[in-house]
């Protein structure tokens, strides 16, 4: 589904990604861990087409297509979704209007007619139940005045609405209380099918108890320096990143 080859990227003239290689197949869950500032969010942003980040080398294919050649909105409509680490607020733009536009743009891209108002509201109700998000939130402007945890929940709600083939969740667990973490993880698991895939960026084993990854990668100074099965998370939780740095001879 996703094949990243020798990807280099910089921001503000500074090299951040320095040769990423990663393959994600349908049905898989990958977790990316790594110290602060190692480039996890940068990788996520580069994949979804944030133009603040400049790709200097390498290639990315998504379902056989050249991902880097597409604009951000096309990538989204091709099925790529990012749950942002820091979702922005858009005052005055209602969640309903925002999501309706987004859903219908996706449909248009697939040559489907727009949803009727009734069908759209039905879809919203269904997905709201799935991630147990309060109507009080979805009746407001996009993220405006939402608490940190509410914003994260709202990201997963949008993911449920858009049903991406590849979802990248950038620290969606940070800021969630214990119940919310369970609810959100549950939502992500419900959305899982053999045809889609998930990349989880996280710092904590806790999330991986709920959403069990097939692979864990450690990103360090712009490179994936270690890949292993889910047991790696426990080891990291116990020992931190120092032993990996040592392995690398630092």
């Amino acid at each position, binding site marked *: 589904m996703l094949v990243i080859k020798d990807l280099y990227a910089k921001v503000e003239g500074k090299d951040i990604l320095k040769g990423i290689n990663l393959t994600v197949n349908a049905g898989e869950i990958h977790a990316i861990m790594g110290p602060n500032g190692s480039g996890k969010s940068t990788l996520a942003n580069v994949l979804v087409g944030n133009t603040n980040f400049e790709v200097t080398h390498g290639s990315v294919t998504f379902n056989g297509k050249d991902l880097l050649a597409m*604009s951000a909105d096309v990538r*989204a409509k091709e099925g790529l979704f990012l749950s*942002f680490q820091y979702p*922005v607020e858009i005052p*005055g*733009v209602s969640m309903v*209007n925002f999501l309706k536009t987004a859903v219908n743009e996706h449909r248009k891209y697939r040559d489907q007619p727009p949803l009727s108002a009734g069908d759209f509201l039905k879809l919203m109700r269904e997905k709201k139940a799935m991630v147990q998000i309060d109507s009080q939130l979805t009746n407001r402007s996009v993220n405006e005045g939402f608490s940190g945890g509410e914003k994260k929940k709202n990201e997963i709600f949008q993911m449920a609405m858009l049903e991406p083939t590849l979802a990248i969740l950038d620290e969606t667990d940070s800021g969630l209380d214990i119940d919310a973490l369970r609810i959100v993880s549950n939502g992500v698991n419900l959305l899982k099918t053999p045809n889609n895939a998930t990349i989880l960026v996280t710092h904590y084993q806790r999330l991986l108890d709920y959403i069990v990854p097939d692979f864990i990668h450690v990103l360090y100074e712009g490179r994936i320096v270690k890949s292993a099965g889910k047991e790696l998370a426990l080891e990291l939780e116990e020992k931190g990143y120092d032993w990996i740095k040592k392995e690398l001879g630092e």
Partner: protein
Amino acid sequence: MEDQNKLLHEVTQRDYRFGFVTDIATDTIVKGLSEEVVRIISAKKEEPEFMLEFRLKAYRRWLTMKMPEWAQLKIPEIDYQEIIFYAAPKEQAKYESLNEVDPELLRTFEKLGIPLEEQKMLSGVAVDAVIDSVSVKTTFKETLAERGIIFCSFSEAVKHHPDLIQKYLGMSVPYNDNYFAALNSAVFSDGSFVYIPKGTRCPMELSTYFRINAKNTGQFERTLIIADDDSYVSYLEGCTAPMRDENQLHAAVVEIIALDRAEVKYSTVQNWYPGDKNGKGGIFNFVTKRGICKGVSSKILWNQVETGSAITWKYPSCILMGDNSVAEFNSVALTNNFQQADTGTKMIHIGKNTKSTIVSKGISAGHSSNSYRGLVRVSPKAENSRNYSQCDSLLLGDTCGAHTFPYIEVANSSSVVEHEATTSKIGEDQIFYCNQRGISTEDAIGMIVNGYAREVINKLPMEFAVEAQKLLQISLEGSVG
């Protein structure tokens, strides 16, 4: 999506195609302005003596006045001897069918959802005499007449209701008010007249009707709205469609008079030719709009969405004379490319316990300049009066400018005046967030700008609000990213 963007982009960024010159038989008089010309205009319109006097007084006063210079505008020299001050078109038809009209224009109409018959009218296609609009007009007229509501052209009102004209003309905007108001008073061609009798609620927005009749209001338009005791009317000016217009200078006057407990809501969506991408051409729009809350507990609301004209100079104002009267000004002014706007309002508190609210949302893009100028004056007698002003500016890109000039004069100690102002830039992160959800940059900007302006757009009557939203979006195409 891509296609749609391309289209939107083309429609809005390409040269505005509505400025074509056509050859029609018109009843014109020599160009230039003189006392003789003023007399001819009045004579051609078969006006009573008092009208001619009004015009002449205004003309003589205008001669002594100078064009205002204090606005934040760069205004090219206007040669008044080159303007033809009276031209009554004898015939409207310029095309036989819509097939002959520029397809780009038609696509813009479609985007705005303008009905077919209206599309024809706006683009100058011959309109069959038995079309819907005519019967609609008749139905409207009957409904209104049953309630004693007068709604007609200014010229008709001068003929049939001279007493009302004589009593109220110039009450809000005196002939000598300012340079452009004096010019308008001397040479105004036509406009609309509304009278709502005592205790009457006008049962419909006076809009569709107006739109149907808006074809030839001319460059010196004059509107007079009188709401008698305990009456209500909502009036919609203009039309969101790109109207053909070959006049460069527009100097309109709008007067509103609200008597005891009357309420007038006046909404404008202005979308005149703004000039091309390089700032050439475009309408100069110098309007004087003023309402008097003459009666106790009367109320006047100005709601406006301004996206057109090369230069806009406009300050819809209210004089709160009656005790407990209320006034509101809600405005969205958008400028793009090389447009210049200097808009705002004046709230003059004279009566006791009067209350005014100002909400101004400026949006600037391209190389445009967008200024808010507002005066709040509370006279010594206007005890316990209140004003709340909120002026927000949104900048798209860094080649545009926004300025705020609030003037506040409070002459008693029991009144409260509050002013808040913010300036923000449209966030690239907001646009990217929308992109990531599958929304194109163009659509995202439209959405964010509409969100920013929502407070004001929500005050517009429903049908106008929908059009205004589309208009804001279309007016910003290609301005970011």
